[in-house]
């Protein structure tokens, strides 16, 4: 068997059913081995999108997405997608071709030291030197990518190693010395957490991306309902908890829900679950949680104390730690009733913002469009987002009802992520509608994936809130640079309806709420991708806003 065949067989053994990629000189043997393989190969129009598709696929399946690229420019094109997955702890196995072993270090044609380039944004990288190493390396790549705190792993295979023939052994069990992720929590730490929670008068849950990565939705809900306390999330944790639940408060942070930002600073104990205290969620590290006790549950020991010193740290998979916590608490907790002072305060806060925040007055606004979208989509529909104002409006106005159905590039904030990721998600879950909540600038970056959506029959909906503006940057220029616009206008170019049509997709312009409703309904019935172009006002700002370097209490609501 050749090295290339061994790769494909090893992928099949891992249960991979789809790979996203694009061929070139250095991975020709791999593409040849794909012929007749038991795998679906989805040909992309740009390798960055292959990585984002693999990422979107991985977020839905909660196992590694796989992408292929050739050496040199193919491999470097993957990097943005790999870095995006790394920042959001998404499991991925990226397979690149490399120049033949003897050519490495000779500045050969299309030679890039991709392991060096990818080092800061991969969990690990392999380069087999002989073909017989391939099966074991692939097995290890999947194990490392998916276990512990997930992340992307690179397998860089020199062309002659792909071509070499050898007798292959496919191991079922592997061990990686020096790598042993912690799964089960230390009971004594959980005990300390129980005491802190019981002592607190105003405890609050702050659920992060780790809950979604772990799939610990039922466990989180059990804890919230046992304690009967408010639940805020980070933006990455959006949808870890149903946002129509009576305890839900939505995401905190720079563009958090105002009620979430308000209530968390009134709490006396924060239970942070699978969240890494990013500057975007908590503002200034020294101000956040001042005078409160903090319990931090995370699988990565290096996250403990990195940005924030905490009182109790529970290291382990939150699914398992939450079960233990709920079990220990259940024996001791006296259930709060629904009108206890803390939950009453929650209601007051929500009511206060409902009364004071005025809507932007226009026939068609981001908020109204997103509320309409939510109303017409089934609860189990999947939403991805692009980056910018569109993304923050999605955070504010699009409620996630079914946990784990909302995905965004949050850590890296990669424009162009949402659309290919939605195609990857659709490949993973063809039975539910998938929508990319998009801005024009972002969609522009990877819109050529329309070809993939059409040809591969993966019809998704691009919900394009079109201000013909790099809107988020324009907002900062309005706020911090006295409206001096620089490099943000898109000058009505291109026409997105025509773009859609050029690829054989459907393009609909919606200029009123009635047209929008019709467009969404048409899109939901369509068997090709639909771009709904929704012209919105370029001057609209996203509020609330917690300016960088300030703390949550300094939130500007814009009211």
């Amino acid at each position, binding site marked *: 068997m050749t090295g290339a065949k061994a790769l494909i067989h090893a992928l099949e053994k891992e249960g991979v059913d789809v790979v996203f990629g694009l061929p070139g000189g250095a991975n020709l043997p791999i593409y040849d081995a794909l012929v007749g393989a038991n795998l679906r190969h989805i040909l992309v129009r740009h390798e960055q999108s292959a990585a984002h598709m693999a990422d979107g696929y991985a977020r839905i399946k909660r196992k590694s997405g796989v992408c292929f690229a050739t050496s040199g420019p193919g491999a470097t094109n993957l990097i943005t997608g790999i870095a995006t997955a790394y920042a959001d702890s998404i499991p991925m196995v990226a397979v690149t071709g490399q120049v033949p072993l003897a050519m490495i270090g000779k500045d050969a044609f299309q030679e890039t030291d991709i392991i060096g380039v990818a*080092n800061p944004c991969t*969990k*690990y990288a392999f380069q087999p030197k002989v073909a017989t190493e391939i099966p074991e390396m692939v097995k290890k790549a999947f194990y490392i990518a998916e276990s512990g705190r997930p992340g992307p792993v690179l397998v860089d295979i020199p062309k002659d190693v792909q071509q070499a023939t050898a007798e292959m052994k496919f191991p079922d069990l592997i061990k990686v010395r*020096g790598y042993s992720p912690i799964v089960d929590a230390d009971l004594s730490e959980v005990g300390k957490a129980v005491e802190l929670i019981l002592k607190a008068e105003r405890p609050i849950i702050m659920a992060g991306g780790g809950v979604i990565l772990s799939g610990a939705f039922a466990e989180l809900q059990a804890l919230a309902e046992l304690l009967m306390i408010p639940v805020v999330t980070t933006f990455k944790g959006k949808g870890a908890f149903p946002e129509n639940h009576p305890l839900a408060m939505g995401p905190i942070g720079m563009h958090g829900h105002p009620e979430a930002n308000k209530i968390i600073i009134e709490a006396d104990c924060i239970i942070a679950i699978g969240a890494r205290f990013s500057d975007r969620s908590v503002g200034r590290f020294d101000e956040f949680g001042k005078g409160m006790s903090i319990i931090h549950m995370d699988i990565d020991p290096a996250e403990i104390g990195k940005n924030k010193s905490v009182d109790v740290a529970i290291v382990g998979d939150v699914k398992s730690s939450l079960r233990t916590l709920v079990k220990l608490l259940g024996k001791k907790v006296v259930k709060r009733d629904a009108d206890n002072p803390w939950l009453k305060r929650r209601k007051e806060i929500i009511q206060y913002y409902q009364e004071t925040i005025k809507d932007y007055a226009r026939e068609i606004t981001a908020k109204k469009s997103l509320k309409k979208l939510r109303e017409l989509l089934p609860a189990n529909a999947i939403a991805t987002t692009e980056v910018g104002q569109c993304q923050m409006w999605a955070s504010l106005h699009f409620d996630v009802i079914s946990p784990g159905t909302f995905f965004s590039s949050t850590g890296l904030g990669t424009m162009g992520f949402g659309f290919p990721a939605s195609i990857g998600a659709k490949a993973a879950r063809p039975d539910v509608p998938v929508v990319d909540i998009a801005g024009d600038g972002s969609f522009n970056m990877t819109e050529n994936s329309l070809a993939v959506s059409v040809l591969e029959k993966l019809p998704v909906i691009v919900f394009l809130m079109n201000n013909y503006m790099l809107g988020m940057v324009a907002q900062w220029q309005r706020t911090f640079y006295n409206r001096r616009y620089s490099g943000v206008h898109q000058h009505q170019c291109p026409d997105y309806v025509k773009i859609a049509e050029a690829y054989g997709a459907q393009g609909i312009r919606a200029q009123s709420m009635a047209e929008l409703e019709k467009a969404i309904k048409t899109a939901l019935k369509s068997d090709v991708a639909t771009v709904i172009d929704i012209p919105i006002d370029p001057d609209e700002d996203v509020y609330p806003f917690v300016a960088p370097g300030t703390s949550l209490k300094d939130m500007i609501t814009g009211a």
Partner: protein
Amino acid sequence: MSANGWYIVSALVENKPGVLFRVTNLFRARSFNIESITVGTTEQQDLSRMTITTNSDQRTLDQLVKQLRKLIDVVDVKVLDLDKSVYRELALIKMKAIDPTTRSEILNYANIFRGNIIDIGKETITVEITGTPDKIDAFKNLVEQYGIAQLARTGVSALPRGTEL
């Protein structure tokens, strides 16, 4: 933030290409301040020992250790207790020494510091000196007056004392 202290971090790592790159790239990416780093083989053929010295506050040290442990190729990491460890550095110091008084003074100092003269030329003397970094600093400060032509230090190697592992 607590005051800076001097720490020795001892790491067992896979003995294979690319590992040193991963470790130093981590230090650069996270702005960890490294004073010295040494790598060499151990009693086990497939493991190398890296000895890292750093001036850090407690919190940064804690992060450095945890981030090192996260690397797949790093098998074990310990912060050594200075009182329960032995640690040494080797330095080669080449001094300008032409006139006989200077020469005999240098020989004298080298003797006191248990250094070895490993090369004598018409105009220079090279001393090999082993000890804690403090001891090497002290010797260097003493002989600086004669003019140091070249100096090479290995960085610290260390092991726990006795039966400590």
